[in-house]
């Protein structure tokens, strides 16, 4: 064995240790991320554009990063189209329902909470299958892509809808 091979051997042993720490950290990280999003996402009152934009960015970038992994090469070739389609759908639903009556005293959006739960459940389930050695999980990957696009779209669409709703009385006052 040459020196380079020997160094590779030792560096890999250290790398296994570092990756082990990363695995433990990532297991803790997803639990906290799950809890934080469950606490914050359904309680966003008003438009809160920045927070909803960050939530949408989180859903899209995390799903994109995950689905681009080499292990999923060819497993779900249409995932980008699914994300874009569900994003448009998710955005359209709250925007089209602008005129629907809204309870002003509502502080907890159960729909938003369930969207976060569905998206993260698909992500965790897919990760569990990947660890078990099953990378050919086409349907699950499409469900993950769809749920993340829907969450991102709904998050942005509801912010837009709320903003329009809030600006209508101002406009009426100005007109009156």
């Amino acid at each position: 064995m040459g020196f380079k091979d020997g160094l590779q051997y030792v560096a890999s042993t250290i790398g296994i240790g570092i990756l082990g720490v990363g695995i433990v950290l990532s297991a803790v990280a997803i639990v906290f991320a799950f809890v934080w999003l469950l606490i914050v996402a359904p309680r966003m009152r008003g438009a809160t554009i920045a927070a909803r934009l960050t939530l949408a960015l989180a859903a899209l970038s995390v799903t994109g990063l995950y689905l681009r992994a080499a292990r999923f090469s060819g497993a779900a070739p249409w995932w980008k189209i699914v994300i874009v389609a569900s994003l448009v759908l998710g955005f359209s639903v709250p925007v089209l329902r602008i005129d629907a009556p809204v309870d002003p005293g509502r502080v907890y959006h159960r729909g938003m909470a369930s969207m976060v739960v569905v998206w993260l459940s698909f992500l965790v389930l897919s990760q569990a299958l990947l660890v078990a050695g099953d990378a050919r999980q086409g349907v699950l990957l499409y469900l993950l892509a769809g749920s993340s696009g829907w969450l991102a779209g709904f998050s942005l669409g509801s912010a837009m809808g709320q903003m329009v709703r809030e600006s209508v009385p101002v406009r009426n006052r100005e007109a009156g």
Partner: protein
Amino acid sequence: MDSPLLSARVRRILVWGSILTASVTAAAVGAALVISRSVPVKPMRYVEVTPVLKLAPGERRADEFESFCLDNGRAAPRAGETHTLSRTGATGLRPYLREVFDEYLTHPSRWRQGDVQQGIWYTEGHKRWESLAPEQQLFVQTAAGKADPVRWNPVVLLSRIAGAFGPIVLTNLVLAVFALLVVAVGTPDPVSVVGRSLAWIGGPRLAQAFIQGRWGRGVSFLAGLKIVSLMRDGLEEAVSRFVSSVLSRRV
């Protein structure tokens, strides 16, 4: 006395960090030296029997090559897809791949291409030794000098663990950072949200320690950053004005 640029604590961390890095590097180099001296190097014989391919600038030539797939997980190439002839780093990075190619190139008539292909995929570490046919096992054993050579090899093991867990670790850490950003941007008191989550998971003591400790101060610092407040309030106002102006134009 503290320097105006670096506090005593930062200097101490830098010094100890450098010492630790240097020690680990020296230990790794020493261990590599010991390992490389104790395991004999197998000479590569393919250079003696393989003709060297030389092309003058602008020269065109038609040659036939036998090719092998290095990555079993990749999708098969499509019909008509162009291939590029280039040097690969895989032979230097993946254990026993060089030996496998050396054995095949020096004894091409002895081994079947299909068995060699299975041997190459075996060096990735995803195939079990028992799943190989007896001829394939014989080929790998002849090339590497021992049976089931990749078992417990740290380089292959790291590659396998990284393949299975790498995307998960990256995704989860990025998700946690984004979730923390959502908390920092979306709530007026992010420390209490993080504290509440800690209380659920680890109990009230942990939450108390976090809120009063430097991590709590770190989250407060993150939430109080000018860029975060600009995102929170400035963006809201800008989009709100835009929506109002669009609506007023339409009436």
